[in-house]
C-alpha cells in the first residue's frame, strides 16, 4: 500500500461521508462510523499463518483476509452474546460437498461466483495449491492438518475447475471441522506462484508481507509492532459484507493503557482483557464486556508421573482434595469462567465438566497416609512467567494449602520462552500449572493431546493403556456412533479418577467494547474476527 493510495482512499471515504476537511484531524473517538478501531496487546508477526514462527496473534489475518472451503456456524449463548458453533459446518468457498458412504472421499463443489480480491475466480487448482502448502511447509500448520487426517498432497485432487476431491486413509469426524479452522485457508495461487522462486516454491516471502485471498478484508497496511489496517474487500462473496469499510488493529502493549483507551472511548474494542479488568469494567458500566468460557479448555494443576510420589494415584487424589478451588476461582480468575470442581457425581459426556473433588484436607491427609506419605514430601512447583496473572496467585494458594497436609512446594518461575521446552518437550516439571485447550471441540480430541503418552501437551507423562485404547477407537468415530458416548463417559471417569491433571476452572475470554459496537463473536482460535463487527 502506497502512502499516496492510502491518502486517496481516505479522501474518498471522507468525501463519501461529507466531512473531508475534518477527517485527518479528528481523534479516533470521532473516526468515521465505517472505521472500527481495535486495541490488542499482542503483536502480529506475519500475514501468513503457514510460515515458520508465525505467532498466535497472526492467525487473525487468516480469518479476516482469507476464506476456507467450509466454516463453522454462529450461535447465541444464554447470556445473549455470540459464539461460533462447533456443531454446525456451513459452506464457505464450497457451496456443497458430498461424503462417500465409506467416509473416505469428500467432494467439494466451489461456489461459481467466488472470486479473489483481485477479481479472478477461485478454482479447485487454488484449493489444491493452498492445502498442499499447508501440509508441506511443516511446523504447526502441518500438525494441525494431520489432526484431520490431511497429511500428503496426494490426498488432494482437482476434478475440474470447480470440483475438488479429498481422499482419506479412513473416515474421521475430525476432517470437516479441521477444514474450518484457520489453517487450511485458500490462497490465490496465480498471484502466489508469480512470486515464488526456486528456493521459495511456496511464496513464503511474498505471502508473509501480502495477503492474496478471497476473504472479507485485505490487509491494506501492516506496520510490524504497531498496527494492521484491514480494508473491506467489496468482492467478498462468502458472507454478509462487513459493515466497516476499514478495521484498524492497533497494538497497545500495556493493559492499563488499553483499559484507559476503552474507558475514554478512543478505541471501539479491546480484545482479550485481563479477568480483573473484565470484572471491574462490567461493574463500573464504563464499557460493554463480553466474557465467553473458552471451549474445550481447562486450567489444571498437572502432576508429573516421573516424580516418584506422583506415581501413586492416591497421592494425586490427595492433592486434588487439598486444592483451595473456591479461593483460586475468586482470586486468580476474578470469578470469570466456569468452576470445575465439587460435583456430586460425573454426569453425561459434557466436556469440560466439574470433577467430584473439593477442598477436604482430612480426606487428603488420609489418602497420603494410605500411600505411605504421612509426613509429606517436597516437590518443586513450576509456573510460567508469561501467564503469571493467573498462575502466580493460584500457585501461592495451592502452596499454602499443601503445606497443611505436609507437602512443601517451593515455587519456581520459568520464562515463557523456556516453558514449552521444559513442560512439553522435556516433560521434566514435577508439579506445574497448565492451560491447554483443544481447537476442535470434541472431548476425545482433548484427551488425545493431553492424556496420550508422548503427545506434546501430556506434560504429566500420564500413561494408561485403557485411555490409549479408548482414544484411538473414539477419535474418528462420528458422534452418532453407539460406542461414542459410552467411550467418552468411560474416558472422563478414568482421567478424573487418575487425576494426572487436576481441573481448577474453565477460563474465559473477555473483551470490552463501547456500547456502539455490535456483532462481537467468540472463536475457539481466540483471535478477533473483524467480519461481523458493527458500529452504530
Amino acid at each position, binding site marked *: 500500500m502506497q*502512502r499516496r493510495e*492510502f*491518502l486517496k482512499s*481516505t479522501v474518498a471515504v471522507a468525501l463519501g461521508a461529507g466531512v473531508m476537511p475534518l*477527517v*485527518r*484531524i*479528528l*481523534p*479516533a473517538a470521532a*473516526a468515521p462510523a465505517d*472505521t472500527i*478501531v481495535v*486495541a490488542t496487546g499482542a*503483536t502480529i*508477526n*506475519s500475514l501468513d499463518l503457514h*510460515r*515458520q*514462527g*508465525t*505467532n*498466535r496473534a497472526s492467525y487473525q489475518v487468516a480469518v479476516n483476509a482469507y476464506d476456507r472451503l467450509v466454516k463453522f456456524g454462529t450461535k447465541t449463548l444464554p447470556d445473549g452474546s455470540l459464539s461460533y458453533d462447533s456443531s454446525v459446518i456451513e459452506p464457505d468457498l464450497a457451496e456443497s460437498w458430498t461424503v462417500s458412504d465409506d467416509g473416505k472421499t469428500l467432494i467439494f463443489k466451489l461456489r461459481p461466483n467466488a472470486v479473489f480480491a483481485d477479481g479472478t475466480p477461485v478454482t479447485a487448482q487454488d484449493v489444491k495449491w493452498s492445502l498442499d502448502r499447508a501440509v508441506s511447509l*511443516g*511446523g*504447526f500448520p*502441518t*500438525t*494441525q492438518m494431520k489432526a484431520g487426517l490431511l497429511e500428503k498432497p496426494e490426498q488432494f485432487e482437482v476434478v475440474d475447475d470447480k470440483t475438488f476431491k479429498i481422499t482419506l486413509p479412513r473416515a474421521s469426524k475430525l476432517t470437516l471441522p479441521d477444514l474450518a479452522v484457520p489453517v487450511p485457508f485458500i490462497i490465490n495461487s496465480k498471484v502466489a506462484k508469480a512470486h515464488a522462486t526456486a528456493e521459495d516454491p511456496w511464496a513464503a516471502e511474498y505471502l*508473509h508481507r501480502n495477503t492474496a485471498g478471497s476473504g472479507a478484508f485485505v490487509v491494506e497496511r501492516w*506496520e*510490524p*509492532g*504497531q498496527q494492521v489496517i484491514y480494508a473491506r474487500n467489496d468482492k467478498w462473496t462468502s458472507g454478509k459484507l462487513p459493515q466497516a469499510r476499514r478495521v*484498524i488493529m*492497533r*497494538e*497497545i*502493549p*500495556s493493559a*492499563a*493503557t488499553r483499559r*484507559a*483507551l476503552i*474507558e*475514554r472511548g*478512543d*478505541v471501539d474494542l479491546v480484545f482479550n482483557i485481563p479477568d480483573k479488568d473484565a470484572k471491574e469494567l462490567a461493574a463500573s458500566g464504563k464499557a460493554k464486556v463480553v466474557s465467553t468460557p473458552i471451549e474445550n479448555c481447562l486450567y489444571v494443576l498437572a502432576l508429573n508421573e516421573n516424580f516418584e510420589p506422583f506415581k501413586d494415584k492416591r497421592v494425586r487424589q490427595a492433592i486434588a482434595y487439598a486444592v483451595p478451588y473456591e479461593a483460586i476461582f475468586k482470586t486468580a480468575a476474578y470469578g470469570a469462567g466456569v468452576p470445575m470442581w465439587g460435583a456430586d457425581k460425573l454426569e453425561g459426556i459434557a466436556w469440560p465438566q466439574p470433577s467430584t473433588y473439593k477442598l477436604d484436607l482430612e480426606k487428603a491427609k488420609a489418602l497420603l497416609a494410605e500411600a505411605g506419605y504421612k509426613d509429606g514430601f517436597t516437590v518443586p512447583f513450576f509456573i510460567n512467567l508469561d501467564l503469571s496473572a493467573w498462575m502466580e496467585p493460584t500457585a501461592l494458594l495451592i502452596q499454602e494449602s499443601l503445606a497443611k497436609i505436609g507437602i512443601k512446594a517451593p515455587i519456581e518461575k520459568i*520464562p*515463557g*520462552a*523456556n516453558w*514449552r*521446552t521444559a513442560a*512439553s*518437550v522435556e516433560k521434566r516439571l514435577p508439579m506445574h500449572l497448565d492451560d491447554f485447550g483443544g481447537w476442535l471441540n470434541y472431548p476425545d480430541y482433548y484427551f488425545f*493431546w493431553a492424556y496420550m503418552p508422548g503427545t*506434546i*501437551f501430556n506434560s504429566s507423562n500420564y500413561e494408561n493403556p485403557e485411555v490409549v485404547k479408548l482414544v484411538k477407537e473414539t477419535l474418528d468415530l462420528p458422534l452418532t456412533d453407539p460406542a461414542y458416548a459410552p467411550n467418552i463417559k468411560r474416558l472422563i471417569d478414568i482421567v478424573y479418577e487418575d487425576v494426572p491433571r487436576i481441573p481448577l476452572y474453565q477460563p474465559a475470554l473477555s473483551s470490552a467494547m463501547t456500547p456502539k459496537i455490535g456483532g462481537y463473536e467468540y472463536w475457539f482460535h481466540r483471535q478477533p474476527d473483524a467480519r461481523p463487527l458493527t458500529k452504530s
Partner: protein
Amino acid sequence: MTSSRTVIVLKRFAQAIPTLFGVIVVTFLLTRALPGDPAAYFAGPAATPESIAQVRAALGLDQPLPAQFARYLQDLATGNLGQSISTGQTVLSDILTRLPASLELTLSALLLSLAIAMPLGILAATRQNTMVDHVCRAVVTAGVSLPVFFTGLALVYVFYYQLGVAPAPIGRLDFAYISPSPVTGFFVIDALLAGDGETASAALGQLVLPAVTLAIFTLAPLARMTRAAMLQVLASDFIRTARAAGLSRRKILLGSALRNALLPVVTTFGMVFSFALGANVLVEKVFAWPGIGSYAVEALVVSDYAAVQGFVLVMAILFVVINLLIDLSYTLIDPRVGFDG
C-alpha cells in the same frame, strides 16, 4: 586543525574495532547460553518433535556453534543482521524503524530534562543548604525514585484520562494520520520537512507525555551533577579572584563557573542518553511507543538470537559514536583537553 581532528576521529573508530569484535563474540555466546530453546518456542503450540527439528534446521541451529558463528560473521560482513523470528522482519529493518522512534523520544526527553536540570543544579549550588537546595534535592530524588511506569501511568491518568488534554497514548501518531515519509526518522521533523504542520503537531502531541515521563526520571543525575560540579568550581581560586576583581555575578556564574562545570555534566549527559535509549522499556510499553528497548526485551525473552545480537551490536556502535561525540565536545568546551594524553 580539521585534518588532525579527522585523524583523531578515525583513530578513535579504529580503537573501537576490537571492542566491537569482543561485543560480537560475547553476545553470540551469551545468547546461546540462554536457557530457552527458540526452535521449540517458534515451532508453535502444537509442535511435534519432527516439527521442532524442522524449525531447528530452518534456523540453522542444528549446526555446531563455530559453524553458526562463522555464518554469522559472514552475514555481518555483508551488512546482513539476520532475520528476527519474533517480528518476522529483518533485524536491520526492525532497527531502522525502531531506533529513530527511541532516538526521537530520548533526545527530546533529555533536552527537556537538561533545560530543567541545569538551572535547578545551578540554583542549588549557589544557594547551598538553603530551602531552595532542599527543594531541588527533593524534586529530583522524587523523580528518580518513582518508577517510570508509575510516572507514565499517573501522567496518562491525569492528562489523558481525567482532563482529556493529552492525546490517547497509542504510539507515535493517532489513527487519523499517516506517518510522514521518512527522512530523519523523527516524525515531527519529517512532517515539518514535508510541510505537513498538522501531522507534525499531532506527532509532537504524542511525544509530550512520554518525553516528560522520561525527563522526570533523568532529572536527578543531570541536576545533581550540575550542582556538584558547580560547587566545586565555585569554591576554586579563579572564581574567588573573579569575585575580588568585581566581575558581575551573572558573568562569574554563567561565563566562568558554568563553562568549567560543563565537562562532567556533558559526560553524564552522554551516559544517561546511551542508557535511556535502550532502557526505557516501561515508558515504551505504557505509551505503546514502538522503540528499541521493548524490542530487545521481547527478543531476549523468546531467545530470538538474531534480534538480540543485532540490537547489542547497534547499541555498541552507538555507544562508541556517542562517546566520541562527547570527547569531541570536550575540546570545544575546554581547549586544554586533548586526545593525546
